[in-house]
């Protein structure tokens, strides 16, 4: 019970932050439109940005007045989430340097470790990593040689 109350206040704080963020996005958009030379390119972003500021503002205020949201990140291991995301982003930065396959392998390995909740055994070790290698090779070949995508 105490735990859920905690996650409630966290959820409320998060909603406030996200709402505020959207208000800022709207304001930045409005500021950006002032530099456009063509009236046609201003009308739409300005209108939409106003809608965003308004709706996100209302969301912020109602959140503040009635902090009863049950939102939140939910249970789960943070290191797994971070490992997945960080290896994928890392792969993306390394791709032009080391090539597509090695970079893809980093992301694959990250995802594999992050998603592995059971204890590793010799069998799973061999099977999963072997499967990963095959999958990556097949997709790489398919895109590079059959579809002629210039993978780095």
């Amino acid at each position: 019970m105490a735990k859920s109350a905690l996650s409630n206040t966290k959820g409320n704080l998060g909603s406030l932050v996200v709402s505020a963020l959207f208000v800022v996005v709207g304001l930045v958009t409005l500021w950006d439109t002032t530099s456009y030379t063509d009236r046609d390119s201003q009308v739409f972003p300005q209108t939409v940005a106003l809608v965003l500021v308004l709706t996100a503002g209302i969301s912020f205020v109602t959140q503040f007045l009635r902090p009863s949201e049950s939102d939140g990140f939910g249970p789960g291991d943070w290191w797994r989430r971070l490992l997945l995301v960080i290896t994928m982003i890392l792969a993306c930065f390394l791709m032009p340097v080391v090539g597509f396959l090695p970079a893809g392998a980093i992301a694959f390995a990250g995802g594999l470790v992050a998603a592995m909740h059971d204890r590793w055994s010799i069998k799973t070790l061999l099977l999963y990593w072997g499967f990963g290698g095959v999958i990556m090779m097949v997709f790489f070949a398919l895109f590079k040689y059959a579809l002629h995508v210039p993978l780095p």
Partner: protein
Amino acid sequence: MELSQFISALTPFNLALALFGVVAGTVVGSIPGLTATMALAVLVPITFSMEPASALILLGAIYTGAIYGGAYAAILLNTPGTPSAIATTFDGYPMAKKGDGDLAVALACFASVFGGLVGAFALLFLAPPLSKVALAFGPVEYFWLSIFGLSLIASLSSGNVIKGLAGGAFGMILSTVGVAEISADIRLTFGSQMLIGGFGVVGAMIGLYCIPVLIDLVATPDRHLKVEDDVRSVRIGEAFNLAMKSKFNLVRSSIIGTLVGILPGAGGSVAGLVAYSEAKRTASPEQRFGEGEPDGIMATESANNATVGGGFVPTLVLGIPGTPPDAIVLGALLVQGVRTGPTMFSQSGSIVYTFIYGLIIATLLMLPAGLLIGRYAYKSIVTIPKAVLVPTVGFMTIIGTFSIRNSVTDVFLMLCLGVFGWVVAKFGFSASPIVLGLILGPIAEQGFVQGWTIGAATKNLFGMFFGRPISQAILAFTLITLIVPLYMARRKSRVQEVSDNG
């Protein structure tokens, strides 16, 4: 439209091509980021050495298969394989989570075949008159159509409409980033080269739908989809009965899909959304859209496959392609020496009719092929260990996003948007309104700017936006869609109050 063309579409070679095309297309469509456009673009040279009609049958079969294949990823991974399948995620993924993924895939197959046939027959019998629809749709009609699509946000985010609207507005702002399509500015790039090309719809869609699923999957040891203990046989019969019960929904959605498909620039995603919206609006009170309602899948899937036939109407009759795959087929036709445009049906009639028959045959072949592949796709997604599923899907999102525009930047933007989408979704700003805004934003903006320019030039702005019959009809539907749920909700709460008091 003679028997001979039907028979020439039926040669063993053409049948084999149609079958191969449907299977290849289904696989292509099911992989997020691998688009029908890409597969077709690569295959066009192969068709140079074929009979024009055979070449067209192959291309058409791949296209229609890909639109159906998009449903797999939508249902089993909450990630539309193609933009056409966006609305399929709304009910498809909840169904899969409840353990009805096999049923959902079978339903999608029946609906796709039905919709595909309606679209193809419309192309066969009604193409010239239907092409008038494409021309009757002016900028203002596109504007109102996009507003109608956006009105779905209100009913999608039943929990919190304000947050849904904010998400939609945010998506529309995302859609303006980069070099403006029809005006002379570069917007919201803050001097960065990365954002010049803007957020591509497919990349953004993969990020917003697929990355959050992956992040949630790794966090806990729970199974990805619920599986019944007794492994049931294929639920084809059950799916067929459900489809039979929803005859009206299927017909209506297929007609919507055909009509929206005819509009160049709208495409399968808009068709699916409009059909979903209509199915939801006319639903009976006990149907729970958004929580795994079979009618939701059937509406989207029949509508998006109907756009295949519909889209070929302006492509073949007017020479104006509706979607990128249509454009590639058009290019292949031109190279083959076929003149599209107003004279095509009279001058190159036999090729056109053989192609349409081929499309119909391919759609029919999709029934056995689709059910078989669907069953296999479901089984493999369900049985594959999570530790392998997550990195495999992750790898596919990277390679798929890259290959859309051969851009590492797009992969990075996809990942950023994915993480951002995951965070905001945890606080009530779900992905669908953002994606809707991203897809419909450009249609709304262009329609508005063009409508306003023409209206101001002819000094009749009010008449331009509110005086045209098609606009009025779309506007009326939009208002009904917005008001009915509000009215229903009020009546429901009043009933509740009464029962609470009593």
